[in-house]
């Protein structure tokens, strides 16, 4: 890991500008590869269960079930692009949901007034945990893995302290009826998915088109050179963990709306599922490379696999095997690409030949 990082850093400083461009090209290929994988999986299941699988009703519920993870995936993509990690998203989600539910329970009422307060409380809690993560990582220089492992336990523990471990099931009906199970008026698109899409588009633009996004990639590619060219690295890192936390807060209220319960015992593998999706989507764990689009595709692969396996009637355990294989494959492709980039072959060979990883070295 360290060697790859060191070598790619040299490559980065030598030709920063051309590198960004070539990386973008490779990136597109990687996202496209993973999209192809998704399409193949989709077509296989469509062939196996033509009357059930490729229907809008089925696709709709896959989209609905991916929505909450999608919101978390945005923040995680930003974090992983900086070569960080955020293990606390699942616990943060639960904590935010618990505090929001508690506040809404205390306020009573099932109308929008209560719901809006709940939404702000959830997002506020999420931002708070994100800020704590960010400050500890950027200022106190504690590794992200450790900081977020700490807040993973702390947030879940506090959620259990607040509730005594007993799930709160009094969620305002408007949240459940409109966000949780409602459709966008006039369509059959779930509201929760529209919300997720808005966030995905918004932060996709932020990551790929704004200065903030550019700095995020810069910090992830090479923190030291980013610092030297005047990027406020600490502030950038804190903002990114705050973003991840805030989105976990959003996911918290979405989860409350969808499940109608705080589901404290749930979400224990959410962080790993989201990280897996981000990595499958072509975002490199070593930082500096990644797309929101890839993450979204990466989220759909496990979801479509599970849905397909259930419909075809395959034993549920196989889904985990398949996802594990795709995950390792994705990281392997990333490693090969990094090794190739380190040897200076990244730009020229990056044509259509390289669709399935480059073999030429």
């Amino acid at each position, binding site marked *: 890991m360290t060697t790859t990082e060191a070598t790619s850093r040299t490559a980065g400083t030598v030709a920063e500008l051309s590198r960004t461009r070539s990386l973008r090209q490779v990136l597109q290929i990687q996202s496209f590869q993973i999209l192809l994988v998704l399409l193949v999986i989709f077509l296989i299941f469509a062939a196996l269960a033509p009357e059930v699988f490729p*229907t809008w009703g089925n*696709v709709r519920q896959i989209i609905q079930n991916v929505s909450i993870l999608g919101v978390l995936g945005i923040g995680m993509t930003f974090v992983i692009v900086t070569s960080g990690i955020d293990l606390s998203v699942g616990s943060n989600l639960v904590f935010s949901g618990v505090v929001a539910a508690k506040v809404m329970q205390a306020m009573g009422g099932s109308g929008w007034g209560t719901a809006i307060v709940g939404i702000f409380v959830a997002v506020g809690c999420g931002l708070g945990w994100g800020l704590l993560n960010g400050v500890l990582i950027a200022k106190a220089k504690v590794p992200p893995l450790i900081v977020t492992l700490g807040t993973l336990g702390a947030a879940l523990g506090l959620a259990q302290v607040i509730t005594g471990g007993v799930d709160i099931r009094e969620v305002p009906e408007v949240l459940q009826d409109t966000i949780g199970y409602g459709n966008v008026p006039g369509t059959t698109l779930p509201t929760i998915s529209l919300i997720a899409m808005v966030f995905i588009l918004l932060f996709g633009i932020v990551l790929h*088109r704004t200065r903030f996004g550019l700095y995020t990639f810069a910090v992830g590619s090479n923190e030291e050179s980013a610092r030297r060219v005047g990027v406020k690295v600490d502030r950038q890192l804190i903002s990114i963990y705050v973003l991840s936390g805030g989105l976990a807060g959003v996911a918290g209220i979405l989860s409350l709306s969808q*499940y109608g*319960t705080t589901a404290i015992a749930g979400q224990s593998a959410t962080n790993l599922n989201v990280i897996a999706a981000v990595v499958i989507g072509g975002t490199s764990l070593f930082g500096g490379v990644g797309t929101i*689009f890839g993450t979204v595709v990466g989220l759909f692969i496990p979801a479509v696999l599970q*849905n397909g396996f259930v419909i075809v009637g395959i034993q*549920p355990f196989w889904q985990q095997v398949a996802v594990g294989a795709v995950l390792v494959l994705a990281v392997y492709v990333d490693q090969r690409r990094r090794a190739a980039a380190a040897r200076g072959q990244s730009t020229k060979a990056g044509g259509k030949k390289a669709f399935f990883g480059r073999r030429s070295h």
Partner: protein
Amino acid sequence: MKLTPKITLLAAGMLAATSLSACAGGSAPSGSAAGAQPKLAFIQGVAGDEFYVSMQCGINAAAKSAGASVNTQGPAKFDPTLQKPIVDSVVASHPDAILIAPTDVAAMQAPLKAAAAAGIKVILVDTTVQDPSFASSAIASDNKGGGLEAFKAIKNLNPQGGKVLVISTDPGVSTADARVAGFEEGAKADSSFQYLGVQYSHNDPAEAARLVSAALAKDSDIVGVFAANTFAAEGTATGVRQAGKQDQVKIVGFDAGPAQVKQLKEGVVQALIAQEPSSIGTQGVEQALKAIKGESTQKEIQTGFKQITAENISGDGSQYVYKSSC
């Protein structure tokens, strides 16, 4: 920062997606025709647990004799956030009936109600939901009675009384809550016993072991622990063993998986309250088939339980032991 290729890519993706959903619109979902082989789906609370495997055995046997097919699915953990996507996928495959053990009374309400609204007959097995009025039938053990029976078992083992504790799974799991309530009722009604309350192990044996160790550190004179399900019993036994108090603390487990039976035979656990998962499954299929045919169903069915001890395990108790495969 040129982004034309990206936009092209996005556009390609969207095109692919729209063309897919477009062709998806063409093929309408079709339920299986009347008179054909009934399609049943069984959604477990957690995959691979002997209780649900035994239930699956009952379901498979009953379905086979009735000429029905069964698709069995279950989440890797007893967790509504993992079970909901499975429920949605099963509903999308539009079976004639779903037999399901809901993992949360609130979270599974809406998805199952939607399934019932889509014309799928829903049979709740073992656990239930907040408002089960949409379900054709709800079949479960008399869990409250089971909890009370567990207290009686502890009392048989400790006639002189003392401190008793409950290790449950998660709050909100209807069956476990009922067992705890039954036990609590019995313990509070008996003045020689002091009820220490309930701790939640979140279906994790290691967590149960930690809870029991901590409880024994606080109250070293606990005489009995009621472990409300399989995982809780496993962990409780470990915790008691770690504290070296096997002779003092009597453990009564709920459920009779191979691990519990082994513990019973080894004397780690002194009694087991066994449910009848196979019977729940068989009756579930009966009710499901009735509902599919449009016949009237029995809204609520309670199955019994059996106290298994070292004395009857090789005799009439053996048939109540759960299976790890059919």
